[in-house]
Every structure is written in C-alpha cells, then in structure tokens.
C-alpha cells in the first residue's frame, strides 16, 4: 500500500491530563512525533514521564474517567483517528494497530487455550479478507506460527492455558499473534521488563526478526536505554510528559545533547567496586511546581535562571535531532517535527 504521506503515524501536539481528586495532573504535554513504515522508535522514560500514557493514547485505550485528552491529533495512515468512534476503533485495533503489554496475562484470555486464542486471531483476520479456511488448516497455521516464535514443543503448548506458561512463553505467544495479524503498527509497552535477563534477550531477538520479516513499524516503550539502543532506529527521551530529545539511536546514545539524557546514561552503573561513586541524578521527579519551566530544572546539573522562565521549545539541531533545552546554543532553530 502506497501512503500519501510517508508517515505511518503522526502525533501532533498531544496533551493528556490525568484526573485526580486534587485537580488535573498533566501526563503528556505537546508531544509531537512521526513514524515511518518499517521504522522502530523507542520511547525511553522513567516513572512519571508519561510513556505509558502515550502508548495508551495512540491505541486510544485511555479511559475518560481517569484521563482527559486536552489537545492534539493522532493521524494513522493519513486518517485522523483522534475522535474515532468505538466501532471503527475496534476494527483498527488488533488488526492495524497491535499492542503488547508488560504483563502478557493482560492480553491473553485466561480461560482459553493457546490454540483457541491464536485460532480466533486467524479467523478474525480471514473474515476481514473474506477468506474462510477449514479447521485443520487453521490449526496448521497455529502450529506454524508457534514454531516461528520458537516456543519449544508447539503441539504441547497449544493445548495449554496462559497461566501454565512462563512470562517469556506468553510474550512469545503475543508475538505469534502479531505475526498472524501483521499489523502496520506494533505498540510494545515494556514488553520485556518483567522477564528474566536471558529470556529478555531471546524475546528481543525474536522481535527484531519478526519486525524485519513483516516490516511493521514499532513504538517500543521502555525505561531501559540499553534495550532501546539495541533494537531501535530512533529514540525519543521522555521526561515530565514532554519529549526532551529525539534522534537516531546512535546519536542519542553516543552524542546525547540534553542534560537529562546525558545524566541518564551516566547513572547506569558502569564502575567497578572501589572506583568511587556513580554519577547519580539528584532528587526525584516531582510533577508539582514545574508547570511553566523546564521539567528537568530542579535536578539539572546545568540549570540556570533562563531555564525557570518558560518551557523550552523542542528545537532542531540538524541531522534529525531535536532537543528541548536552552543550554543548547544558537545553532538550533524553532522547527516543527517533520
């Protein structure tokens, strides 16, 4: 399918508030992003950064009794889906836009066997394209897709229920579903955070293969910069509900510009015992008091009065890198994300 606009997904000035008894708390502020077909974008952020809100907003899973979308547009395949009605949204989700959560038990039906869940996914997909296949053929497809995600004894796993399998196995099953659906956009919200280190490595490798094969675009949300770096083309660093820096993986990891990104990289333990202290970022994220200034100001080693005056705008500094920091010089231009 040839797209009019080369962007698969475009988010414009998205702002979301969380409703709380003591007033609304901004979770996302003026977030703008774009994603091309086949591109992997990681959103890196810690708690309070708004990264999960972003994932939920794009897949339109935010509920109105806890959150409020104040502003912004979400454009998918050239179509504005910001205010799409539930029925049309359902058609979109699961087929074109697919989500994987941190806890696979959230997406898998605990009362259905694995084979039935995958079979259901296949049948839904077939119905869309007008096909109807026989039950044995579908079961073969189920086996094939389970083999593709290297799940071990496919015939055995098929018969089981999700609670009988490990987290790693369940995430593979989610990836199997993604393979069945072949969505254009995959949103993965911390898919490997709850997994063991070795399992995480396997699942990430698998994900990379699947992405290569299906040419899906992926929004990968994580708190782990190293994981983001190992899998993505581009990285966006989120802090205080705003994108603080965005650029290619190489640029973000090797030539970080924003003080938060730099500090984040530095605080990853890399010293040996006896080599002194780690470079910690002082304090912790507080959502209060930073409404009209740079969100990182209270903790920034380079902070000065200019930073308190207003929220710095996201500026292009060339080569596709954008930074939101006033300590970033004259070379920057005020440009909208392209």
């Amino acid at each position, binding site marked *: 399918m040839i797209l009019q606009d080369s962007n698969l997904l475009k988010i414009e000035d998205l702002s979301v508030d969380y409703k709380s008894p003591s007033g609304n708390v901004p979770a996302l502020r003026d977030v703008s992003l774009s994603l091309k077909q086949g591109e992997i974008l990681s959103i890196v952020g810690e708690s309070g950064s708004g990264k999960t809100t972003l994932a939920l907003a794009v897949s339109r899973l935010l509920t109105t009794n806890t959150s409020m979308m104040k502003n912004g547009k979400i454009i998918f395949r050239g179509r504005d889906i910001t205010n799409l009605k539930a029925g049309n949204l359902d058609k979109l989700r699961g087929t074109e836009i697919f989500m994987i959560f941190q806890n696979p038990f959230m997406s898998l039906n605990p009362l259905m066997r694995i084979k039935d869940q995958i079979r259901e996914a296949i049948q839904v997909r077939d119905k869309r394209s007008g096909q109807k296949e026989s039950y044995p053929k579908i079961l073969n497809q189920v086996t094939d897709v389970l083999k593709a995600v290297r799940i071990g004894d496919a015939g055995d796993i098929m018969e089981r229920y999700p609670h009988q399998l490990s987290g790693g196995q369940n995430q593979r099953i989610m990836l199997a579903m993604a393979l069945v659906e072949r969505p254009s956009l995959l949103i993965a919200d911390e898919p490997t955070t709850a997994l063991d280190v070795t399992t995480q490595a396997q699942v990430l490798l698998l994900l990379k293969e699947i992405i290569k094969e299906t040419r899906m675009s992926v929004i990968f949300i994580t708190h782990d910069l190293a994981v983001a770096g190992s899998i993505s083309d581009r990285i966006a660093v989120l802090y205080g509900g705003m994108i603080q820096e965005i650029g290619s993986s190489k640029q973000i990891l090797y030539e970080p510009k924003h003080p938060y990104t730099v500090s*984040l990289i530095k605080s990853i*333990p890399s010293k040996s*015992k006896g080599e002194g202290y780690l470079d910690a970022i002082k304090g912790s994220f507080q959502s209060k008091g930073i409404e009209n200034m740079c969100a990182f100001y209270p903790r920034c080693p380079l902070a000065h009065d200019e930073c308190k005056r207003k929220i710095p705008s996201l500026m292009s500094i060339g080569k596709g890198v954008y930074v939101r920091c006033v300590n970033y010089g004259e070379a920057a231009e005020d440009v909208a994300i392209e």
Partner: protein
Amino acid sequence: MPAEKSSSFLEIDHVIKRFSQRKSGFWISLIGRRKPSGFVSAVDDVSLEIKRGQTLVILGESGSGKTTLGRMIVGLEKIDSGLISLSGDPVRFVRDRGVNRGKLQMVFQDPGSSLDPYMSVASCVAEPISKFGLTKLQVAAKSAESLRLVGLEGDILDRRTLELSGGQKQRVAIARAIISDPEIIVLDEPTSSIDVSIQAQVLNLLIDLQRIKNLTYVLISHDPNVAKFMADNIAIMHLGKVVEYGPSASLLSCPKHPYTKTLLASAPKLGSTLPEGVVGAGDPQSIILLPKGCRYESRCQFAMEKCREKEPPLLPLKEEPEISVSCFLYND
C-alpha cells in the same frame, strides 16, 4: 569450601530447601518425563562463605533459588538440611523464640509492600528496635540518626509510608534495616523496582553505609552492572545450585560457566546490539522436572554426553583456585 572457619563471618554449609508440590499433577503427567518426587528443591546443596565487611552478590534469574537462599540467611525460611551460621552461631527460624533479633536484616525488592502503608515513617524505621527495651527518647534519637544516614529529612517522620515515592520508600527500608546495627543485611534486588536515575543514588548510599558501619551485604540481583559496582565476590545461581563463584573482577571479565557467559551477554549494554550467538536457545529448564545430569545441559552450546549423565560438582579451578565452577569443561 568451608576451609578457614575462623576468617569466615557468614557460613552457608550444604544448605537445602524444599518446597512441597501440590496438585500440579496433571500438568506434569502430560509431559511424562521424570516423575516428580513430590517436592521442588529451590535451594539444592549450596555452600558459600563471606567475610565480614564484604559484599557477596548472588546473580541469578527467576527460579534460581537466590531469593529463597537470601531468606534462609536471615531466618525467614526454615532450612531443611545443612547449616547457616553467623560467627559460629547458627541462624534460627524467625518464629522460634529468642532469636537473632536485629542482627540479621533484609531490604526487599518492592518498596511498596515492604513498608506497612498505614504506618508512619517513624514507626516503620523504629520497628527493629521496638523490642530492645529502649526509652522513647533513645528510640527517637536512633530513628533520626538512621534517617539522616540515608539522606532523608526529619520532617518525613510523621508521614505515612504510602505517601512516599519509590526511592524514598527504599531509603526508609534501608534506614529500618540499619537501625538495629545488624551484622548482615540481605538485599533482595533492592533497586530493581525503582527508576534507573534513583538506583544510582541508592547504590551510592549502600556503599557509603557499608563503609561507615562496616556492614556485610548479601546482595541478590539479576543485573551484572549492579554486581560490578557492589560486589567483592559473586556467586552465580541456576536452578538451585551455585554454578560459578569467584572474585567480582575476574568473574565478570572472564566468565567460565556457559550459563554465566549467557547471563552476562544477555544483559543489555549501552551501545551494543543483541548478542545473537551466545544467547541460549529454548526455554529455561523447568525446576519441577530436573534432569539427572547438568541442569543447564538443554540450553548449553557446549553440552557433551557426559553432561546428561552426571551433575558436575562445584570445584575450584586448578589455575585459579579462588574461582569455582560447576562444569565438565573445566573439571573432569
């Protein structure tokens, strides 16, 4: 391993912990492999020792038994076989009368559930010394001191713990752990549930406290970076057994056991891509259906016939005796 008993402070001697299995019958019978003997050995014959003032890091994944071992060290789990002793005195189960009060402390992974949400910070921190017979003034003084040491302000004393952030909660948990001047602190993944940027603060704090109070740490983790920063010695655990043990620097720079290699290679590193070759294939070995040979054999790229037959014993290397490995590649 327990050679010079005099220099050891904490000794773990051939310790076994079993959990009985209930009602998983049908799942296991479907596979039809080795019949379950009715229990799972979460910790299967582990021996370790640690000198005073040092940090032992136990690196492992879920199912390795690291948390169970940590709990046994402080007495939260009964020992089925073997002995754990602190300066020669055996560690007893917490619910037994007149026990190692205050000498053994633990910092848990999830700060949210390790502090009673309805208690004030003051009561939380003072709990370990609440049975020491101190006056209110003495307790208050010690609490304030403990909080100061972990970098928290005094005005936090009256707040309920549920109002605190993750990092603050973990600091309170640490303050609670040090207030009784413990001899050993077991820390079970103390930074896994908090942000990376706060993790660095907490690790720095732990290093400081160790120095100031001459603390001995047993730190359980899955993160080699944390191990690198905190450990004097590292023990790698896999399915209830120690598969490799040695000084931190040599173990991390030159891992011997295939599992150790996989573990270290799998940990995401800044700037490197995913390690395709070293990452073991297949799912982790189930702890319920243990093979009679080496437990890592099914995923090991170096597996030999011998590995299926017998379990390799944990033995020191001839050339570097301070390192022990449980693998037929190194010991016959």
